[in-house]
């Protein structure tokens, strides 16, 4: 039985049905039961030899190639697997551990990660370091053979239930910004780690603030080299980009053309030429992005990796949502803004409208994406950079008065 056949058979027998679905970490907070179900599923995946497909056998992986990984993705695309809570663990932290971890770190952390026993989160963003990811102010100070960490992280998804975190902290504020950062492995249950849910504008709190109050880390908590944390972070963010690009939107989406067109028909607005024109334009926006993504995949298969062109998809996807918000208003009219409490259509549309700003902010704002396309795809000259040659402690960072 070849790999594809094996994956297909196993999924057919083991993948949960739609109503058992566990939400993604960035979507909403899973219940205890959902979390337990997700862990059970991951363990089963591991037992079936389908976890960590490209990871080393030595650490519980399968030691296979990207081809098998791709096959798994293709076969899994028809399912709604409850692996959302492991996205950051498997998609970002794990691969970075594989790349940069010591033998001891890998032996300790990778097997339980693959078995679904431990979950990871990513501790990068800070209130003062948003688009400017390297503007990290959280300090890690050496104290004998330990490090003492103090600072605040934000936008941490999964921190409520994560066991470990990959932390980016500043170890040398006398160095320029991109030097003097170090990546650490943090036990999220350690004293001094406080997780507070961060409520977003939709009213839910899938993200958290994480306060680090003199958290003591052992010397072997360093991932990679001391003061070389920026390259570790770049590696991890590279994994994130691949991971975001590969994920598929499967949920019911009230802002999708198909659903808005159906709504227009139900509400008797499908005969209005202006609504029709806007719906056609929305379809065009959706379709051209989908075809762009398909073309990117074909190019990738043909040996041309997408590279920074993934930013086009990110940018176009965000713009598309804003277009859809406009069309939704034309179609749903006043029902966009007020509806009966029992009307889940109303709730769903409002949630989608309120979540839309995230699309052009999270994971790199539209402005950042345009910069990436300009710099890396088109090769346009960089802006003057005022933060490159100055010791970090002399830089202005975050939100400061004039």
């Amino acid at each position, binding site marked *: 039985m070849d790999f594809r056949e094996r994956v297909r058979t196993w999924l057919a027998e083991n993948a949960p049905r739609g109503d058992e679905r566990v939400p993604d970490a960035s979507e909403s907070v899973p219940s205890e039961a959902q979390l337990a179900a997700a862990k059970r599923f991951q363990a089963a995946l591991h037992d079936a030899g389908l976890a960590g497909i490209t990871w080393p056998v030595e650490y519980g992986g399968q030691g296979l190639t990207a081809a098998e990984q791709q096959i798994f993705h293709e076969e899994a695309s028809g399912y709604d697997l409850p692996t959302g809570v492991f996205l950051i663990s498997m998609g970002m932290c794990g691969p970075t551990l594989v790349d940069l971890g010591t033998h001891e770190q890998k032996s300790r952390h990778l097997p339980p990660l693959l078995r679904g026993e431990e979950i990871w989160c990513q501790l990068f963003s800070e209130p003062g370091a948003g688009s400017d990811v390297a503007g990290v102010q959280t300090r890690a100070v050496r104290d004998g053979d330990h490090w003492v960490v103090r600072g605040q992280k934000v936008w941490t998804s999964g921190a409520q239930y994560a066991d470990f975190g990959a932390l980016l902290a500043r170890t040398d504020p006398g160095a320029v910004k991109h030097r003097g950062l170090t990546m650490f492995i943090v036990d999220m249950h350690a004293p001094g780690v406080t997780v507070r849910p961060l409520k977003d504008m939709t009213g839910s709190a899938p993200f958290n603030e994480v306060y680090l109050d003199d958290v003591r880390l052992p010397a072997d908590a360093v991932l990679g080299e001391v003061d070389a944390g920026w390259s570790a972070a770049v590696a991890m963010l590279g994994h994130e980009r691949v991971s975001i690009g590969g994920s598929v939107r499967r949920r019911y989406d009230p802002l999708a053309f198909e659903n808005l067109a159906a709504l227009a028909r139900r509400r008797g607005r499908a005969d209005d030429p202006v609504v029709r024109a806007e719906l056609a334009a929305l379809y065009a926006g959706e379709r051209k992005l989908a075809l762009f993504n398909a073309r990117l995949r074909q190019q990738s298969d043909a040996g041309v990796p997408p590279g920074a062109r993934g930013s086009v998809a990110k940018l176009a996807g965000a713009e598309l949502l804003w277009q859809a918000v406009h069309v939704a208003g*034309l179609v749903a009219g006043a029902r966009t803004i007020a509806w009966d409490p029992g009307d889940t259509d109303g709730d769903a549309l409002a949630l989608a*409208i*309120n979540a839309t700003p995230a699309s052009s902010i999270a994971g790199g704002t539209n402005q950042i994406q345009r910069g990436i396309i300009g710099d890396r795809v088109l090769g346009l000259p960089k802006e003057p950079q005022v933060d490159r040659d*100055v010791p970090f402690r002399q830089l202005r960072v*975050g939100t400061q008065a004039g």
Partner: protein
Amino acid sequence: MRLILDDEQTQLATSVRDLLGDHCTSARVREVITTDEGIDRPLWTKLAELGAAGLAVGEEFGGAGAGHVERCVVLAELGAALAPVPYLASAVLAADTVTALDDRALAEELLPDLASGQRTAAIAVAGADGTWGSSAESVHAARDGDLWRLAGEAAFVVDGPTADQVLVYADHGWFAVDGGAVAWRPSTTLDPTRRIARAELVGTAARHIACPDPEAVLAAVWDRAAVALAAEQLGVMRRVLDETVDYAKARVQFGRPIGSYQAVKHACADLYAACEQAEAVVRHAAWTADHDPAELPVPAALAQVVLSGDAFDTAAAGLQLHGGIGYTWEHDAHLYYKRAKTSELLLGTPASHRALLAERLGV
């Protein structure tokens, strides 16, 4: 035509702004919107004491007899502060309806209380799809001896459940009913700072307001509502612009304030250009309502064509320029976003506003 404020009007703006600065902080708004009623009665009283609720009500009915320009000045401040008070519902929609109905008895009975803020009223003019006037298809009026009784539903009633009186546009024209006699079904709303409800009428006793042309009253009220709402939307735009520019000056990324980046600076410039043009549109519409009401239909439709889209775009852009912090519940950006989207669709859709303007221009 006069597009700038005189000293007295500027003074009025300052008074209201000061009052709101003291009594309508973000913390207070966030407290009020979690209450059952969702409106700030103490603040309402203070505004009423300032004479704000009766600005456009004739002096013979206890109002200031000032006018739309003044009322728009107040509305802009209320919009900027997202003040959870029934000003739009009662001091605009209901007061203008009573005025337009031109029924002396009703006016004498209701207007003084609306002007003083003693009582509030609401209007019910939409059916299930929200179209202005569609309640005439969903609410049926029937004579019952000397009385009338209303049966059916009206939706999208702004600040209905707290209203003492409700003016209903039904199949036989305009009716007044006691707010307490209506079975209210509060709606879930996109905007937590503005309450909207559905009214169920099951043989509810009503008083018929004789009126030669009920549809003309409806149109007159829409025009004035369009201008008033536009003033509120202008307040949202101005506040979002100010907050965004301040943030762009303070927030540092990559070693310099984000307002020094063209991506942010030019976006702020566009917000400013939109806001300044919007203000001219609102001032002109308000001036027309006061001084040349026969010409109001075009400026009123124009006000909604311009403000409904531009206010939402401004709120969305302002949120975007705040980045992650703008997406949090804690920051106020989302409240302006939700208010602006709600206002965009409160009196029709951007498409219906354009269609109306085209019609009124004789295209």
